[in-house]
């Protein structure tokens, strides 16, 4: 081949490989971008007066007088709305039957939407479920509801070769000429006064319990559950892992037993996570009866099996990386091997072992399949420490799946789902960052 073509080939390889790296980085961006931006929306958003009222009544948070004054102002702004409704209902009574029937279904829709937007209408009995007792707590959802209020979604089925096309018809037209007609422009122009949106940094999203199936409140039970499960898995896995690593790096010969042990460890590393879940259910709960039902204990034990190989591997690497000089110096001074391991080897390898432990924590926190049938529930109270031995708990990974698929009102709680995903991803990333920093410190120490 001529030189020019060879150079071209070389350049194109460079181009292709750099493109691959760029594509990888781009995919990370595409993945994390929406999660971060919409997840932050669970923490930073414009909260309405309903939100502040909820905080006061359910969590005892906020200035009572301020909120009372706000409630008065808001009620005043809403008065015309209710007045128009009342006038319209009067008008309906005096209408003839056919016309009235036509308006009745539409009126029900209007009232339902108003209830979702502003909360219970005056004069109605108090609802039992929390979600009916408050209007919209977020301004972005309020605007969506306003859109639904002002426009009816209708479908144009005129083209028989395609599915219907959506178009929006102003609801105002259906009430033309009645007492309810001015309601629509009034609501549109004055929604801000009726809900008083203000920016809030709802960091307590992380520490509040969830109310009414995650409609309101925060995700504390899930976070606590994840913390319990991770710490429990660590509690089981770290002792066995470090001991195994010490044995394999210091005490083991090269015999067949040892190589079989190594094969077993790498096999354990390759087992799919769902098989761990199946095993955990069959062994820890159905055979050993660690707990009568699902529990954090069983879940932690299952997770511990999952991360054991990782801990053994990283600990062994860290132990092997300790310079021989340290070990030989200790031994030559007359220390027994145990003493050498405990007083010289382990402390020297500690940063490396810590790195491995922290990365395994991230892995244990994010795993779902092992805990589906051993520890996770959809709804539950945050557990006290002793309850973890026998009770199940909500956990971040499982509840992300649950809220994104099984929930009754998935669209209303999108921000909660994104918030959960963001929290989980941030948790794992922070753990990894800590591990990276520790590793950077070791390499600096080793180099210098």
């Amino acid at each position, binding site marked *: 081949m001529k030189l020019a*073509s*060879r150079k*071209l080939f070389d350049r*194109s*390889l460079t*181009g292709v*490989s*750099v*493109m*691959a*790296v760029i594509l*990888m980085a781009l*995919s*990370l961006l595409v*993945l*994390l971008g*929406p*999660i971060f931006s919409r997840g932050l929306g669970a923490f930073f958003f414009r909260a309405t007066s309903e939100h502040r009222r909820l905080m006061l009544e359910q969590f005892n948070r906020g200035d009572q007088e301020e909120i009372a004054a706000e409630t008065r102002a808001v009620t005043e702004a809403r008065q015309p709305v209710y007045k128009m409704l009342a006038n319209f209902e009067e008008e309906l009574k005096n209408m003839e039957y056919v016309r009235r029937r036509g308006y009745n279904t539409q009126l029900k829709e209007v009232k339902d939407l108003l209830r979702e937007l502003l909360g219970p209408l005056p004069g109605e009995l108090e609802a039992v479920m929390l979600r009916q007792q408050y209007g919209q707590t977020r301004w972005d959802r309020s605007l969506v509801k306003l859109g639904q209020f002002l426009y009816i979604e209708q479908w144009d089925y005129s083209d028989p070769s395609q599915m219907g096309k959506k178009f929006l018809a102003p609801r105002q037209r259906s009430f033309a000429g009645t007492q309810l007609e001015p309601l629509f422009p009034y609501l549109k122009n004055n929604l801000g006064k009726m809900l008083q949106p203000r920016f809030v940094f709802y960091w307590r999203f992380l520490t509040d319990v969830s109310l009414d199936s995650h409609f309101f409140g925060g995700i504390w039970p899930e976070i606590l559950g994840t913390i319990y499960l991770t710490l429990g898995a660590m509690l089981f896995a770290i002792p*066995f892992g470090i*001991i*195994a690593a010490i*044995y*394999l790096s210091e005490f083991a010969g090269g015999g067949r037993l040892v190589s079989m*042990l190594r*094969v*077993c*460890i*790498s*096999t*354990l590393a*390759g*087992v*799919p*996570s*769902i*098989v*761990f*879940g*199946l*095993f955990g*259910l069959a*062994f820890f709960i159905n055979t050993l009866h660690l707990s009568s039902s699902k529990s954090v204990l069983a879940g932690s034990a299952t997770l511990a099996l999952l991360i*054991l190989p990782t801990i*053994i591997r990283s600990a062994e690497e860290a132990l092997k990386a300790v310079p021989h000089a340290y070990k030989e110096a200790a031994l030559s001074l007359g220390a027994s091997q*145990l003493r050498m391991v405990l007083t010289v080897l382990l402390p020297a390898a500690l940063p490396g072992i810590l790195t491995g432990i922290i990365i395994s924590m*991230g892995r244990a*926190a*994010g795993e*779902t*399949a092992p805990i*589906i*049938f051993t520890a996770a529930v959809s709804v539950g109270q945050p557990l006290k420490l002793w309850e973890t031995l026998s009770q199940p708990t909500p956990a971040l*990974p499982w509840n992300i*799946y649950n809220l*994104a*698929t099984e929930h009754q009102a998935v669209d209303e709680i999108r921000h909660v789902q994104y918030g959960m*995903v963001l929290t989980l*991803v941030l948790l794992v*990333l922070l753990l*990894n960052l800590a591990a990276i920093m520790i590793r950077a410190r070791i390499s600096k120490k080793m180099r210098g």
Partner: protein
Amino acid sequence: MQKTERNLIMSDAASRLRRLTALILKGFLLLATAISLVAVLLIIAYITRDALPFFRLRGLGELFKSTAWYPSGHPAEFGALAIFFGTGLVTLGAILVAVPLGIAAAIALSDILPYRLRQTVKPVIEILAAIPSVAYGFFALVIFAPLLQNRGGSLLAIALWLIGLPLGLILIFVITEMATRSIREDVAGAARLILAAVLAVILIRGLLALSATLTALRIASGTNALNVSIILGIMALPTIVSVAEDSLQAAGRELREGSYALGATRAETLFKVIIPAAGSGIIAAVILGVMRAVGETMVVWMASGNAAQIPSPWFNFLSPVRTLTATIAGDMGEADQVTGSSRYHVLFALALCLLLTSFIANLASEWILRRQQRKLGGLK
């Protein structure tokens, strides 16, 4: 002054005690290490023990040959061929996505990028590896599936251009080279240009036509094999990149320097020297990536559609499929011996298949890696 005179040599009894404690300690450590051995044996034992009754009840043929998966039907049928196929299809898709990208990225990391850029790219790979699988599944279900459904055609067209154009150009280049090898030098340049122009026109025309058909494509359901394959490919990328990069690095500087000294360009060095030397390591990387894709549960459960069918034609990635892991996860509540039956045992049979596959793949990749270490170690 007898007290200050210390006995520097241990007495026989003390020495024996020391050795005994050392032995006990070693035994205790061995026992604790054996926990992993016990765990693996227990897992294999439990899964096998509860999987065998299925084969006793229904025989070996049905699970692997029939595509009728109706575990709760009357009568119940347990044909898992479509499910095996589903796992195979999404794994194939993941490999198609991850292997070219992964090897190219590994080459970039080991040979092409300067040190500082390499240090910035490594965290990207670690972050990709660290993101929990349920976050990937959430992305696949909530963001990617609607995207595929509403704009899938155009997305596929864009991907076609992104991949097709460079590949096509490389192909044109290779073809022109090979075709004009035997022509005289002075005419060769012109001949190459003409040939390249003609081929380029054909390429552009072809791509335009294909992208037009793709854009007009209506994807019925966004939760399908394509969705899952792409996401699984991204999940398998970090594994493939890091293992492949390690292998490429392990080939060593001497090999590279020797090749450069003979006048080879970087690309020629890579393709003719390094990659063949690190070849087995790359294969091991691919096997590990396959294992990751096969064993993944949450992404496939949420976003593959869970339809136990073999798509027609078999390579139709746009149809929903069902995988082994999603079947086990979805039916896991049946894993309770109380109303034990074939339905309960079939889950363990599927898990046994998964376990055996990962076991074999693991052994294979370890053997390959060890062989490569020996081969390259001998060169040093």
